[in-house]
């Protein structure tokens, strides 16, 4: 009998595996790079001329325009952690005020669900699997849409989210009128200063220097978060697997929600958490009822990145905006989870949408394009 590489034969790995401790240290370095990126981004915008900045962000003073900008930016970078960190950096730089940032944050929340919706399209060839997968993905979209429908008008009329977040900022870190002494900001000042000095030594100044700082800052944020996510996923994969296995047996929504939040904080990506759920839903291992609270937890967990970024800015306004993100998601949970009838709304809508998608597969792709690209793009162009 010829052996041609059994999956079970004793494996002798020739590939060097990064030791766990080294990988964890690498993540800490990446986190430092991320925070430095946020600092550079804010500094870059401060360096730009007022007219240029006003021109760039004139569309976001319209709340719907701001919503679409946040959505589109998140879809483009495929990460709400990146986009919300950027928004926090803009607020810290004084480029965008808290009131304009809130709809952008809500839009970022919407945009992050495109990843798992795309993941569900991988099951498009099998009716039953596709129905389950698409429902699992779109329940996230629909929860976020419903939360925006409820809380954006409330926020515009009452300022509920921003004033509550502002109060929390005052309580936690002191006066909201001036910068606070953030140890994280002190830590990232030096590398940011080196980059600024390097750019100055290369002859750049004014708007050019500002643009270069923004580009470098965005690069730092994007690359560091991508690698943090990749490495954290490897570091915590076994724990995530154990947690999901436990959640399958648990039955409790609150436990599932907490696990969703903890997993997302660990891997620094709600898209990873919710995308892992899609094949589990497709295979029938998890029901939509199981997935819904994990998704809600992931929504809250992903706000930690922006909170961390805001603490590095030293700007109370930035911290307020980051807290708005968390508060928005928690408020959505308070409305759309505890009460059975309201809890069923996004679930029933997701089931209905997936029924339609199974009958008309092209609609599933159209939905994704229209909801995440065409409508926000048109919205941004028209409302500018």
């Amino acid at each position, binding site marked *: *009998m*010829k*052996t*041609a*590489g*059994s*999956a*079970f*034969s*004793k494996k002798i790995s020739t590939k060097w595996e990064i030791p766990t401790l080294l990988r964890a240290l690498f993540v800490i370095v990446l986190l430092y790079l991320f925070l430095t990126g946020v600092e550079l981004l804010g500094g870059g915008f401060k360096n730009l001329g007022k007219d240029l900045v006003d021109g760039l962000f004139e569309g976001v003073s319209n709340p719907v325009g701001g919503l679409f900008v946040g959505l589109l930016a998140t879809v483009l970078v495929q990460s709400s952690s990146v986009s919300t960190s950027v928004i926090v950096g803009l607020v810290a730089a004084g480029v965008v005020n808290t009131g304009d940032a809130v709809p952008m944050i809500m839009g970022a929340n919407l945009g992050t669900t495109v990843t798992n919706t795309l993941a569900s399209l991988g099951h498009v060839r099998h009716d039953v699997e596709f129905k389950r997968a698409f429902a699992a993905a779109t329940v996230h979209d629909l929860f976020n849409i419903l939360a925006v429908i409820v809380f954006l008008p409330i926020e515009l009329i009452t300022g509920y989210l921003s004033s509550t977040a502002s109060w929390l900022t005052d309580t936690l870190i002191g006066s909201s009128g001036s910068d606070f002494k953030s140890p994280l900001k002190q830590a990232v000042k030096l590398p940011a200063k080196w980059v600024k000095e390097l750019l100055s030594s290369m002859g750049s100044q004014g708007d050019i220097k500002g643009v270069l700082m923004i580009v470098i800052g965005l690069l730092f944020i994007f690359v560091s978060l991508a690698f943090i996510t990749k490495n954290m996923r490897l570091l915590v*994969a*076994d*724990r*995530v*697997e*154990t*947690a*999901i*296995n*436990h*959640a*399958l047996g*648990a039955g409790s929504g609150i*436990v599932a929600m*907490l*696990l969703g939040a*903890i*997993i997302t904080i*660990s891997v620094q990506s709600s898209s990873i958490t919710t995308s*892992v*759920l*899609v*094949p*589990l839903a497709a*295979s029938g*291992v998890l029901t939509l009822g199981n997935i819904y609270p994990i998704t809600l937890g992931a929504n809250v967990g992903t706000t930690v990145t922006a909170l961390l970024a805001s603490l590095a800015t030293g700007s109370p306004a930035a911290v307020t905006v980051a807290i708005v993100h968390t508060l928005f998601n928690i408020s959505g949970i308070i409305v759309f989870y505890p009460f059975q009838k309201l809890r069923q709304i996004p679930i029933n809508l997701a089931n209905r949408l997936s029924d339609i998608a199974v009958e008309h597969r092209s609609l599933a792709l159209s939905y994704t394009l229209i909801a995440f690209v065409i409508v926000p793009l048109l919205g941004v162009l028209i409302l500018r």
Partner: protein
Amino acid sequence: MVMSFFRRPEESGLENIEAQVQRMVNDARHTFDLALSAVTGGAVETVANEIRTTDRQINATEIEIRRALVVHASVHGGIDTPEVLTFMNMIKDIERIGDYNKNIFDLAEEGVSFTESPELESIISIRDEVSSRISLMGEILSLRDEDRARIYIERGDKLRRDFDQRVTDLVHSTEAAVTAVPRALLFRFLKRVTAHSSNVVSAVIMPVDQLDYFDESEDTRS
């Protein structure tokens, strides 16, 4: 349960799954021993409940393992796909062993007993060998012992040929159906148990695409 996330898991996902597979193997051996004892003079009523409960346990474990495999594949991506597919295949074979053990017990419930049979000694000897083979199956799997796996499969081939011959002899015999048919069924079920246990062990030496492919003629094996 939430705090369990912060504790280092004692076993990896696949190690945990393998532990569950070993439990399935132990249960399969247990139901085999009970079923064979029932048809070779043991008390039928006393073991009926235990066989059914253990068989349900085997089925429940299979479902749990399948679920755990899907979770593992979703979390870790495609990196362990061959092992995941191999486990999926393997637990199906172990579950089938449990089913055939129940089929053997069904003979006892129908009143079949081989205590008066001229082949009783042979049946007892086969019983002992197949029972220890089920246990050995689990051992070879956990040690990933390729040499012992080959020897195991070769011996399995001989046993299957022997069972086939016995069934063929009974088909052509002039013996009364009331004695011939139960023995034919017994040897048929024993052949299937032997084949499925060889299938399980084949995971140690065969690639995923060639698992089980010695159930057919040995000529088709590469």
